[in-house]
């Protein structure tokens, strides 16, 4: 009984992993597959599992269509802008909470800050929509950059606080005692040690802003169109342009995936802090 059990479970476990791997991989494959097919081969029975005559037409369309490229550029500007701001402010605050936590309200304030991120985005964007109206921030890059701080700033603060916490305060004190000013101590000791964490925080913050939809849907739409707002509109006389959508999906998913592969260890660590989902 016990021996069968120990022999059978690994086999079952591996089978389970295999099935799940197919489940995880197939939609990724299908994204690419669909992007390479002409529209008439998409809604077919039986499905075209291997495109006989792959074409880059849909990719060419994405890269030459001004709405598509414009939306990707908008997304780039907004994701990068909000990342710069939230990492800059969040790193300062994270350092403050890590080193002077008790002076500024301790763990509770830091946690309270994180908890603002848990609010449903719709709750934040409803009043913001009108406030942005008063300040002419609707449909602008800067508006969305500021709006994305609502979820990115608590994230960067919390992550950076955690990364700074991993560097003992005695490291800085030792540098002070050895004759270093706080600024130089930070540059020579803290910064090199926190750099991997800073990079992971930057990347995570960028990916969240890059993939955001509901805020973009509500406060932009004419002058500024982040790429997720374009995708639901790729329809031609009631026909969904699947190949173009999937070509766009491939192109916009490449940057986050490269980031994931390059910084896998740090990003997983960041996600483990339980603040992964937007």
């Amino acid at each position, binding site marked *: 009984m016990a021996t069968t059990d120990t022999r059978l479970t690994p086999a079952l476990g591996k089978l389970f992993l295999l099935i799940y791997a197919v489940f995880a991989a197939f939609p990724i494959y299908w994204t690419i597959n669909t992007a390479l097919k002409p529209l008439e081969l998409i809604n077919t029975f039986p499905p075209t599992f291997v495109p006989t005559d792959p074409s880059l037409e849909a990719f060419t369309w994405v890269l030459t269509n001004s709405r598509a490229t414009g939306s990707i550029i908008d997304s780039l500007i907004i994701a990068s802008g909000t990342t710069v701001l939230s990492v800059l402010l969040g790193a300062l605050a994270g350092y403050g909470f890590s080193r002077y936590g008790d002076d500024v309200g301790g763990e509770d304030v830091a946690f309270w800050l994180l908890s603002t991120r848990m609010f449903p985005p719709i709750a934040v964007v409803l009043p913001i929509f009108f406030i942005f109206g008063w300040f002419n921030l609707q449909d602008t890059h800067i508006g969305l950059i500021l709006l994305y701080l609502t979820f990115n700033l608590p994230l960067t603060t919390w992550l950076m606080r955690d990364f700074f916490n991993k560097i003992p305060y*005695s490291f800085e*004190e*030792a540098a002070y*005692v050895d*004759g270093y000013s706080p600024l130089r101590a930070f540059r020579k*000791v803290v910064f*090199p040690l926190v750099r991997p964490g800073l990079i992971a925080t930057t990347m995570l913050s960028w990916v969240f802003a890059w993939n955001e939809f509901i805020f973009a849907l509500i406060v932009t739409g004419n002058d500024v169109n982040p790429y997720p707002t374009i995708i639901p509109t790729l329809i031609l006389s009631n026909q969904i342009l699947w190949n173009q959508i999937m070509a766009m999906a491939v192109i916009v998913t490449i940057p986050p995936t490269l980031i994931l592969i390059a910084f896998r260890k740090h990003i997983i660590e960041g996600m483990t802090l339980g603040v992964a989902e937007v």
Partner: protein
Amino acid sequence: MAEVTIDNLTKEYGSIVATNDISIDIDDGELVVLVGPSGCGKTTTLRSIAGLETPTSGSIHFGDTDVTDRAPQDRDISMVFQDLALYPHMTAAENVAFPLHADGQQPETTVRESVEEVARATNCEEFLDKKVVDLSGGQRQRVALARALVRKPEVFLMDEPFSDLDELLKRQLRAEVVRIQKDLGITMVHVTHDQEEAMTMGDRLVVMNDGEIAQMGDPDTVFNEPARLFVATFIGSPQINRFDCRIAGDRTLTDGELELELPADAADVLDGATGEAVTLCIRPQHLSWADERPADSLAVPVSVNVIEKIGTEDIVRCRTAGGTEITGVVPAGALSFGQEGYLVFDPSQLHLFDGHDENAPRLN
């Protein structure tokens, strides 16, 4: 190098008083050990000398210079931290050179010479090029020492750096630190909770308790003439025997079970007691064994309960008929379990304190 003068140092964190009105004068080239249980204020005192804490009141002088309000980087000190604070992203050599780069002025050749010189003195030449993470515990200690020594500072501070090491290495490093300190004539303040470490290293001990100085003095004085009951119980191993007594006659004390008849000259000081309560202490080393009750001495009938072998001597934990524990030190193998006899008090080594409180002052 310089003398350090601490005047009336008080540090409060909110309502908690970490150090209360501490004054210590440290001579040039002296090794002072601050010793006490955790939370006694020793580390706060050390950190105040370093400038890592701002005193609530009081002042600190190095020589004639008032450094009370100076930031640590302007104090010309060095410090070995409890966790050593070696930087993992640097090699041992880079760690040692770190203080020399503080002002960014030192030419590279001078830096290298200084690093090599201090590495020789602390025996860490062999692993200078390794990363800190690849070093053993003892090697890290040496690198930390080298980093603290390399700048030849006015005052050298150590915050329990040996607490994580094994016993042998600890002894070795203690001896080495004392040698280097004497060779270079460094003014040094060392903090430890380990009374044995304090006794073996210090020119002078500052025994602290509850944010106050319980006693200041050389190791012999602190050991032989503890000024307060706390010092008597904290210093010395095995721990001193303590009898919480009431005065029962001109020369007689009783702790409820035992009647202790003091020698005439020892009993004289009882006149100075402020009340009935008196504590009598005697170190285990000052008790001797007798099979028969000796005439004219203070002795207590006991039976041997536990024997701990420590080599040339045995620590014997004895018990009276009423259950009072008394510890003695006898030559190895002299006694066996359950043996009955008398522990005889050396009359010249009695310590009497005015009361049972740990702050009770010495009477004799």
